[in-house]
């Protein structure tokens, strides 16, 4: 039999700290590791100077077609962006009125960002959305108070992309929730209907839906009642997105334990009440990353409407450059520009979704 003495806790022996140690461990710990690092570095060093030359050192920054022509092949011509930025960003919107789409997009962006912040989750948010949409359409459409009327066929570029993405998300969400609830309904007919809708829509490509919205839809309606093509495309995207969102929402619904529904019933809540107050908030919270991924897809997919001749961001780049022999050769720089825009927005969304996840974990547990 033995009894040991009390041993006080002490700190671990000093491990080498700091970035140098990190580098040593991460990049040169073990010979295979070191070899990989060297190979990657060699590759990087061989590729980088050329790339840097092209993007930076040899690049032409002024909208100077002749300088660009001279630098062609060795350096990028960022001047093309300077020259064409307005056309790329705003499409065929009348040039004198460009402040309107700019203002409208900024308003919309600000509102979207505000809606993402917990601090702003106040009562005024809902009316704010109504107000901003009203302002957006008023600004874009004009036709009052001295603002020149601009028909929707001339809307284009970034505002169009933003509007289509946000509006179709807004429209798709409630539909998705209904579909998801429907797929779990006790009523077999409704269940089957919702399941069929979701599976059918998920089985076809978006562009076939867009074709349908833009070519066929008018045939389905009584003669003369054809809504604006923008509206039809918007509906098409929303109906399509709803099917995908519905699956995400359904996964969330499944993650809510049955006990929650029982508990809600036991305090007297009816079916709709318990879904609205108890199940959905938890279900949607549980699938924020999934929802955000779907939102990102919708935003990216908005680029497909160029295929049905609407000039959103991707389309307006084509519009801006492909008809202009002087600047057409610098398409790749144009693509870099819009790629950067798409990337920033999508990356911001996925960052945000990770942030929300962390917030939730922190807020609800100890």
């Amino acid at each position, binding site marked *: 039999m033995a009894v040991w003495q009390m041993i006080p806790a002490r700190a671990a022996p000093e491990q080498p700290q700091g970035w140098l140690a990190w580098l040593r461990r991460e990049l040169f710990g073990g010979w295979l590791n070191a070899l990989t690092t060297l190979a990657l570095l060699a590759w990087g060093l061989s590729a980088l100077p050329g790339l840097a030359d092209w993007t930076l050192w040899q690049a032409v920054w002024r909208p100077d077609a002749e300088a660009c022509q001279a630098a062609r092949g060795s350096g990028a011509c960022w001047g093309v962006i300077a020259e064409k930025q307005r056309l790329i960003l705003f499409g065929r919107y009348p040039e004198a009125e460009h402040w309107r789409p700019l203002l409208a997009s900024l308003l919309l962006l600000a509102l979207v960002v505000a809606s993402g912040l917990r601090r702003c989750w106040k009562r005024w948010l809902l009316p704010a959305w109504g107000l901003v949409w009203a302002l957006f359409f008023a600004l874009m459409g004009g036709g009052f108070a001295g603002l020149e009327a601009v028909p929707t*066929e001339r809307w284009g570029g970034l505002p169009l992309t933003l509007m289509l993405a946000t509006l179709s998300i807004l429209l798709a969400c409630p539909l998705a929730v209904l579909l998801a609830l429907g797929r779990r309904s006790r009523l077999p007919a409704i269940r089957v209907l919702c399941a069929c809708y979701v599976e059918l829509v998920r089985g076809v490509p978006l562009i076939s839906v867009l074709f349908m919205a833009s070519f066929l839809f008018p*045939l389905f309606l009584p003669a003369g009642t*054809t809504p604006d*093509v923008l509206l039809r495309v918007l509906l098409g995207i929303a109906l399509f997105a709803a099917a995908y969102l519905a699956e995400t929402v359904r996964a969330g619904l499944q993650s809510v334990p049955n006990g929650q529904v029982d508990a809600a019933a036991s305090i007297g809540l009816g079916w709709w009440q318990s879904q609205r107050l108890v199940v959905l908030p938890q279900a949607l919270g549980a699938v924020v990353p999934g929802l955000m991924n779907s939102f990102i897809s919708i935003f990216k997919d908005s680029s497909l409407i160029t295929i*049905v*001749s609407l000039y959103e961001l991707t389309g307006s780049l084509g*519009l801006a450059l492909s008809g202009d022999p002087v600047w*057409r050769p610098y398409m790749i720089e144009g693509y870099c520009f819009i790629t950067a825009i798409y990337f920033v927005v999508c990356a911001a969304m996925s960052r945000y979704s990770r942030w929300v996840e962390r917030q939730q974990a922190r807020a609800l547990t100890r």
Partner: protein
Amino acid sequence: GKTLDTIKQRDQIAIGVSTGVPGFSAADSQGRWTGLDVDIGKAVAAAVLGDANKVKWVPLASQQRFTALQSGEVDVLSRNTTVTLTRDASMGLAYTAIAFYDGQGFMVPAKTKVKSAKQLKGATVCVQSGTTSEKNLADFSRINKLNLKPVVFDKFDAANAAYFAGRCQAYTTDTSGLASVRAKEAKDPKEHLILPELISKEPLGPLVRRGDDEWLAIVRWVVNGLIEAEENGITQANVDQLKADSADPVVGRLLGKTEDTGKLLGLDRDWLARAIKAVGNYGEIYERNVGEKTPVGLARGKNRLWTDGGLHYALPLR
């Protein structure tokens, strides 16, 4: 008819145009539509509504155009569309008049030294999808055993871009299109050669929906009226003056001075005078948009009046 009523009611005509063929219908830097097809549309608007600007322009890709017309999204399709039997008979469309006589041709980079389309054996050819060009190309290739390889793009500008990037050894579409593309989109027009062969007949003209003969008649006679106006020397500049003092019975009839042709069409007396006042006669429209003084630079050629040895032969307005 019904179409005319709805148009009058909403006080605007919806006209389908192409998404961008310089000289025919293209947006200028201000986003305004200009071109021959556009002017014809304007003439119709002026004749019907009294104002050439009461138009909603609907740019359409080639796959969209027929359904857009069929479904009522546009009232007139004025979009360099070839009139063919299939289109006229089976697709719910009706042609009104021929506004431009064209034919399909080839363009090649001058450096290839190709002088005739028959030398294109085995070449890759850029073409836009959903056009008569695709079929003509296939026929031409088969007849001459050329084994041409089409690369088909869904949009006109995509096909242009691919040709100028060097993806294809030749580019085929209507010669007017080739000329306008070469003029406006080639860096140096001299580097590209339009080959002499015309491999098809391409009568282009505005189309309307089937089933409304009154509306068809209006569009048909506006086009004929513009041609007739040229034949009779009525121009944008002199129309008012002629209307006031011309003693020529034909002019008087055309401008509604002596006879009310408008009533027969369901319009007022001045319909043609307004149209001419808005866009000029056919010759003026042609010269302004695609004529030799414009970048597109097309000689009148077949599009001269019959009196000058061309094909434009306006049906008599009486």
